[in-house]
């Protein structure tokens, strides 16, 4: 991982917030190829094969029939600009493609971002969450 090796930087102001650093610190953005994020392998680790074949329904059974807004939120069926439910669950590999900005076969490219954002919003206990979490594990 790369990072600042000069002055410590942390938690300063975002736009619109009151706090401004009293002196300017140097922020090292790092080389493009260097990584600044490591994801800790969760306890629900699965094998690589099962990750690629696990399934994520979009949306889950709790929201059957609802459409998905571009930001990933569930909205009533027929909402303008929202994506219809997928006819079948996405396999892990298809979800991985979506999260990388690609469109797997059979998915409307104009709806891909909505589906990707829905997957990113999955929370523990929701159908497909374990599959999504496993997709993020480093190999």
């Amino acid at each position: 991982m790369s990072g600042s090796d000069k002055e410590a930087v942390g938690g300063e102001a975002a736009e619109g917030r009151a706090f401004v650093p009293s002196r300017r610190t140097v922020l090292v953005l790092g080389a493009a190829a260097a990584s600044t994020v490591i994801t800790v392998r969760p306890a629900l680790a699965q094998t690589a094969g099962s990750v690629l074949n696990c399934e994520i329904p979009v949306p889950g059974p709790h929201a059957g029939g609802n459409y998905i807004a571009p930001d990933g939120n569930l909205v009533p069926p027929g909402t303008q600009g929202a994506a219809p439910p997928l006819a079948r669950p996405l396999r892990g590999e298809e979800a991985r493609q979506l999260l990388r900005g690609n469109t797997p076969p059979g998915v409307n490219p104009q709806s891909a971002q909505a589906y990707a954002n829905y997957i990113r919003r999955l929370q523990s206990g929701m159908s497909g969450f374990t599959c999504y979490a496993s997709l993020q594990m480093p190999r």
Partner: protein
Amino acid sequence: MAGPRYVADPEDLVRVVELDGLSALFHEPSGMTHIVAAPAPQILDMLRAAPADAAELLRRLRACYDFEGDEAAESIHARLEELETAGLVRRA
């Protein structure tokens, strides 16, 4: 043409523990834990305030920090990409 705009989850959804120069982040919505180095925490701070594309994010960061090196534009895209992959930011 402007690039994609990104947003980060609010502070109350991400627990942060400082680790002597690194930060451990527990992202409650995904249940995932990440260990991050600068500039990731600073980027997340900026994107919590409001969505931004890479150019706007750089402008906000420049308002608070000096940058080392002259590859800021290239590097910020890489940082956003890895934060998106980790699920810590998403497209607005």
